[in-house]
């Protein structure tokens, strides 16, 4: 079965990103396909490579990166939400005249159409939020 995952909240503040990760991992381990993980609202904050959580706690961004590497997951950060919150890749840096990027490896910034497409292409859309 083909799942799509929507994550509406950032790392640590709410459990949404944790639950989304555990669900995605469990689905993949059961042999399901995950068409895309779409990060919306504060969810875009999962996609920064600049976090350094305490060593005795999980590293939420790196967990997503590892899962993406292992299963070739498509991790998409919504561009409109990212602009409001300061998640920037090379293209956005140039386009918005910024002086730095903070996007994490394996994440890509794209439009809201990617969420709609995920809803169309997948069998189930799962929403995780606050």
């Amino acid at each position, binding site marked *: 079965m083909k799942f799509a995952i929507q994550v*509406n909240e950032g790392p640590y503040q709410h459990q949404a990103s944790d639950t989304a990760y555990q669900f995605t991992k469990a689905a993949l381990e059961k042999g399901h396909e995950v068409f895309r993980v779409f990060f*919306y*609202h504060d969810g875009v904050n999962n996609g920064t490579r600049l976090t350094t959580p305490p060593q005795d706690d999980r590293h939420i961004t790196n967990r997503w990166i590892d899962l993406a590497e292992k299963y070739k997951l498509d991790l998409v950060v919504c561009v*409109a939400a990212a602009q409001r919150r300061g998640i920037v890749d090379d293209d956005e840096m140039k386009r918005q005249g910024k002086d730095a990027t903070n996007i994490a490896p394996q994440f890509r910034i794209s439009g809201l*159409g990617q969420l*709609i497409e995920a*809803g*169309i292409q997948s069998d189930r859309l799962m929403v995780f939020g606050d």
Partner: protein
Amino acid sequence: MNEDEMMEEGGTIKKFLYVNRRAPYGSVYALESLEVVLIGAAFEQDVSMAFVDDGVYQLKKGQDTKDVDMKNFSPTYRALEMYDVEKLYVDKASMDARGLTEEDFVVPVEVLSTEQLAELMEDQEVILSF
């Protein structure tokens, strides 16, 4: 995918429901969910929007955000018709609890009983919650 889900062009048409349960301005969900609906319109899906709980406040006439210095996005609901998003449903129980009537809303809506709304949800294929 069954046959009546196929458009002549070969694209899939699914029943998308956007469930809005939050008041405007207190959080960004109302604004950003509207952005999804507008982008999603280009995909020519079968779109419905449901306003439940504090979500009914999103449609309140007369919003004036000058003094809070936030963007007033309520006129956008009136633009939905141009995007062929015409199925707007309001939960009667939520509306009544808040002392609102259809005349309070910026756009025409269909007011649904609990049973009708439950039926509407059951009839969907993709449900996005904000």
